[in-house]
């Protein structure tokens, strides 16, 4: 367990925690993008260059921006007013989350004995990934393409103003 690993882990976890705890939603969005960046770095440490950059491109470049837009469009940018940021059932939620973590951790540690200690870094070039995508995984690729297209259209339709026909429907 190198130093880099712990540093990046600390960054990521800190980002995640901040994302779920901060009051201001925009801060949460920024924090979560920090967490995304940390995850990307973890991918890089795992010699998964492609996945790492894809992670940055998709999550920081697109998802974070989307979230921010959604926040601004729903007028949530300023810190919420009455009632605090946590739902009424926050305690139960916390307990459940803790339980999940406990179980997962238990599982990992229980299985930790059989895990390989070190493995040589697999020399995987982007070319191989491309070939795999175009060869063995071409069907999933097509399906994902379809999914993305339909999601694009669906998102537009869902978010479209219902009263478009009445002169753009500017209220």
């Amino acid at each position, binding site marked *: 367990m190198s130093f880099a690993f712990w540093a990046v882990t600390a960054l990521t976890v800190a980002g995640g925690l901040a994302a779920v705890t901060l009051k201001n939603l925009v801060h949460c969005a920024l924090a979560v993008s920090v967490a995304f960046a940390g995850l990307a770095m*973890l991918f890089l440490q795992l010699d*998964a260059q492609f996945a790492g950059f*894809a992670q940055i491109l998709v999550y920081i470049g697109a*998802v974070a921006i989307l979230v921010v837009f959604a926040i601004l469009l729903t007028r949530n940018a300023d810190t919420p007013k009455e*009632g605090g940021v*946590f739902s009424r059932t926050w305690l139960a939620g*916390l307990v459940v989350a803790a339980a999940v973590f406990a179980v997962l951790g238990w599982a990992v540690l229980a299985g930790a004995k059989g895990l390989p200690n070190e493995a040589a870094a697999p020399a*995987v070039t982007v070319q191989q990934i491309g070939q*795999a995508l175009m060869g063995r995984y071409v069907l999933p690729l097509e399906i994902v393409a379809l999914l993305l297209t339909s999601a694009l259209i669906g998102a537009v339709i869902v978010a479209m103003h219902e009263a478009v026909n009445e002169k753009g429907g500017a209220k």
Partner: protein
Amino acid sequence: MSPLAGYLLVAALLFAIGLAGALTRRNAILVLIGIELMLNAANLNLIAFWRYGPHPEALTGMMFAIFSIAVAAAEAAVGLGLVIQVHRHAKTTDLDQMNRMKG
């Protein structure tokens, strides 16, 4: 501790954090953020298994992660669109007030 276990633990922690966020926050967008975190934790697991698994050259875990990233993007787009629409209707994104689906 073997590196794989380390990565798995980190993933578990992130997953739990995301779940906590999804479970405890009032705001729908925050719930979405939490879910994104959970997805990412899952991706980390996949990549880690790919890296330390017996057949890294098969690229299975990697592919899985890449596809799930793509799917996550779609999910975010649609989810946020839904949130915006809900906000238009209910004028709120507070989940505690969105309980019209009561049976």
